[in-house]
C-alpha cells in the first residue's frame, strides 16, 4: 500500500506545468479567441516537441509508455493552462484505449508524432469536440467502440467556452476497437483531472487578485470573509485530487469497481471546480463579470467539462446503483474495494 506519486511523476508534472506557463499563458488564450480557427499549428507543434501526445503511447510505438496515473497528473496541467488543443482527447483518452485494442501500432505511432488527432463521439455527449481537424473518429454503436478515418465535415456548434470547438455527431462506423463504456470511463476520468487543474488555476487567479486589490486601505485578501470563501474552495479541490488518483489506478488495473470510482472522481472534481468558479468570480467582484480578466476562460471551461462525459445525474446514478444498490462493498476496510 503506497498512496504517493513518484519523484519522476512529480518532476514530469512540474516540467509540463512550467512549459505550459511559458507558451500557453493567458495572452495566448486571448489571441486564440481572436482567431477564426481557435487552434494554432505552432502551439500543437510545441506540444509535440515536448513529447506530450506520446505520453501514454507504448515505447515500441515511439511514446513514453506512461500510466493512466501519469495521464491524470498531466491532464490537470492541461486544465490549469486552459489548453484547448485536442491533446487530452487524443493522447490521454484515445491512446490508452487504442493501446489496449491491439493492432493499432501505426496509429499509435502517428499519435506520438502528433500527426494523428482522434475525435471522441459517445452518446453521453450530444456533440463531438474538435471533429474537424481530427484524422480519426472513435464512435459508438451498440455498445461497441468503432475506429474510422474522419472524412466528413459537420456543423459547428457554438460553446460558451470560446476555445471549445464542438460539432454535431457523424454516423458511427468503423473497426471495433473496444467498448463504449471503456471510452466513457477513460474520458470521464481525464475530464475530472482537467477540472481540478481548471479549479487550481481559478484559485490562483482569485488569490492573486485578493492579494493585490485594496479596499478600505488594505488588500481584500486580509478580510476574513474573503479568506474563508477561498479556504472553503481549497478544501473541495484538495479532497478531489486523491479521488481522481485512486480512480486512475482502478481503471488502469481494470478493476470491476473502476466505473464507480471514476464517477466519484467526476462528481468531486466538477463540484470543486464549479464551487471554485463562483468563489473566484465573487472574489474578483465586478472585474470578474468582464471579458477583460482571464478568469472567464477557466470558469467557462469548468461549466463545459462539468457537463461533458456524464453530467451529475449520470454519475450519481452509477454511485447509486453501486452504493445504495449494494453492488459495492462499503464501510471500514473497503477503501480500495
Amino acid at each position, binding site marked *: 500500500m503506497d498512496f504517493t506519486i513518484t519523484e519522476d511523476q512529480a518532476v514530469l508534472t512540474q516540467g509540463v506545468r512550467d512549459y505550459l506557463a511559458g507558451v500557453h499563458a493567458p495572452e495566448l488564450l486571448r489571441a486564440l479567441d481572436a482567431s477564426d480557427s481557435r487552434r494554432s499549428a505552432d502551439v500543437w507543434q510545441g506540444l509535440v516537441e515536448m513529447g506530450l501526445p506520446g505520453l501514454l503511447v507504448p515505447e515500441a510505438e515511439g511514446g513514453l509508455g506512461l500510466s493512466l496515473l501519469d495521464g491524470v497528473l498531466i491532464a490537470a496541467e492541461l486544465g490549469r493552462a486552459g489548453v484547448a488543443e485536442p491533446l487530452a482527447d487524443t493522447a490521454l483518452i484515445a491512446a490508452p484505449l487504442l493501446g489496449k485494442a491491439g493492432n493499432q501500432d501505426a496509429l499509435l505511432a502517428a499519435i506520438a508524432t502528433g500527426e494523428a488527432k482522434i475525435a471522441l463521439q459517445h452518446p453521453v455527449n450530444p456533440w463531438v469536440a474538435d471533429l474537424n481537424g481530427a484524422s480519426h473518429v472513435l464512435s459508438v454503436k451498440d455498445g461497441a467502440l468503432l475506429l474510422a478515418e474522419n472524412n466528413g465535415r459537420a456543423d459547428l456548434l457554438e460553446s460558451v467556452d470560446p476555445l471549445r470547438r464542438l460539432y454535431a455527431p457523424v454516423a458511427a462506423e468503423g473497426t471495433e476497437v473496444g467498448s463504449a463504456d471503456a471510452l466513457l470511463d477513460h474520458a470521464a476520468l481525464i475530464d475530472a483531472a482537467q477540472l481540478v487543474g481548471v479549479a487550481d488555476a481559478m484559485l490562483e487567479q482569485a488569490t492573486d487578485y485578493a492579494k493585490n486589490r485594496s479596499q478600505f486601505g488594505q488588500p481584500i485578501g486580509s478580510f476574513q470573509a474573503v479568506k474563508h470563501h477561498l479556504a472553503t474552495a481549497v478544501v473541495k479541490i484538495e479532497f478531489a485530487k486523491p479521488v481522481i488518483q485512486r480512480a486512475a489506478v482502478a481503471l488502469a488495473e481494470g478493476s470491476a469497481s473502476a466505473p464507480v470510482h471514476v464517477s466519484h472522481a467526476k462528481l468531486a472534481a466538477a463540484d470543486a471546480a464549479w464551487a471554485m468558479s463562483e468563489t473566484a468570480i465573487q472574489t474578483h467582484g465586478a472585474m470578474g463579470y468582464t471579458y477583460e480578466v482571464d478568469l472567464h476562460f477557466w470558469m467557462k471551461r469548468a461549466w463545459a467539462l462539468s457537463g461533458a462525459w456524464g453530467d451529475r445525474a449520470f454519475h450519481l446514478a452509477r*454511485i447509486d446503483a453501486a452504493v445504495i444498490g449494494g453492488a459495492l462493498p462499503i464501510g471500514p476496510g473497503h477503501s480500495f474495494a
Partner: protein
Amino acid sequence: MHLAYTSEQQAFRAEVRAWMEANVPKKPLVTLEREDGYHQHVEWERKLASGNWGMVTWPEAYGGRGLDLIQWLIFEEEYYRAGAPLRVNQNGIFLLGPTVMEFGTDEQKARFLTPMAKGELIWAQAWSEPNAGSDMAAITSKAIRDGDHYVISGQKTWSSRASFADWGFGLFRTDPDSKRHKGLSFILFDLNAPGVTRRPIRQLHGDPGFAELFFDEVRVPVANRIAGEGEGWNVAMATAGFERGLMLRSPARFQAAAERLVALFRKHEAAAAPAAREQVMQAWMDAQAYAYNTYAVASKIMAGGHIGAEASLNKIFWSELDRAAHRTAMQLLGASAELRHFDGGALNTWLEGYIFSLSGPIYAGSNEIQRNIIAERLLGLPR
C-alpha cells in the same frame, strides 16, 4: 502508487479482526460522558492494553507495537468494523503521548507513557480558559515557581474527560509578566491534587462530558513540566498539530457511519425526501475521499514527508462531512429523530452522533481558525 495491501498487511488485518471479534463487548457500553460509562470505557482500555492493542503506533519500549501509519489505518478499520467502544484515553494516545515522546525527558517517558499505554491513567486536556478559547495565547492561569514546585492558580474550561479522569495537561503562564505566546509552560498535573476543583459541565446531550477546572494554589512538581520553562506554546502547537493532523479522527469512523447511513436510507427509502438519496451518496463519497487522503498523507509521512498547514484541510473536511452525514440521518428519521430511545429501548445513536458532530467544527481549533490558517499559510493571504 500501489493501492493494494501486502500479504503482511492482510495478515495483520486478520489478526486484529480475530482479536476484536473475540473481545469487543457484545452489548454497547454506556456513554463515556457519564460516570458509569466512563468506568466501563476505562475497563475497555485495560482490555485493549491486555492484548497490547492500546497504543499501536507507539514504540514497543513504551508499551506500543511500533506500527506504521498504514498498519494504524488497518487497525482503525478493524476497530470500527467491529463496533468497538470510543477511546476514553484519546487525549493520551494522540495528544499527550506523542508530545511526551517528542519533548519529554527519559524519566518523564518512563513515568507517564507506560501507565498511559496500560490504561492505568486517563488524561484530560486543559487548554481553554473562559477568556482564552480560539485565542489561546490569552491564557492567564499562572504557575509560579516555588523551589522545586509550581503553584498553580486560575481556571480552565471545556476540559475534555476532566469530570472523571486521573490527570490533566495544559498550558500555564510561568512568567507572570509575560504576554501572549511567551512565558507559557506545558505542565502535567494530578486532578486529585489538593486545590483542584472540578465542576462538571453538562453538555448538549445532558451528560457531564467536560468540566471546568479551578486551581487554588495547587502545588505541582517542576518535574511535571514538559520541555523548557516558557517553551509551552511551541509544545502545545505541536500537540495541536497531532490532533488536527492525521490521527484524531481516523477515516474508518466516517466510513462506518456512511455504511450505517446507507442501511438507514434503505429502510426509510419510501418516505425519504428526494434530496436524501443524494446526501447519502455524498456521505459515502466524502468518507471515501477522506480515507484516500488519509492514506495519501500517511504514505507521504512514511516516505519522510511532513504534514503542516494541510492539517487544517483535514479538520474542516472530516468535521463537516460528519455533521452532514448525521444531519441526513436525523432528517431520514423524521419525527423519530427526537427520541432518545426508539421503541424497544435501543439508544438513538444517530441523535447522539448528531449532537457530537456539532462539536467537531468547534473543538481542536474552530473551523474558522482553520480557514484562517489555510488562507494565510497555504494561500499566503495577508494577516
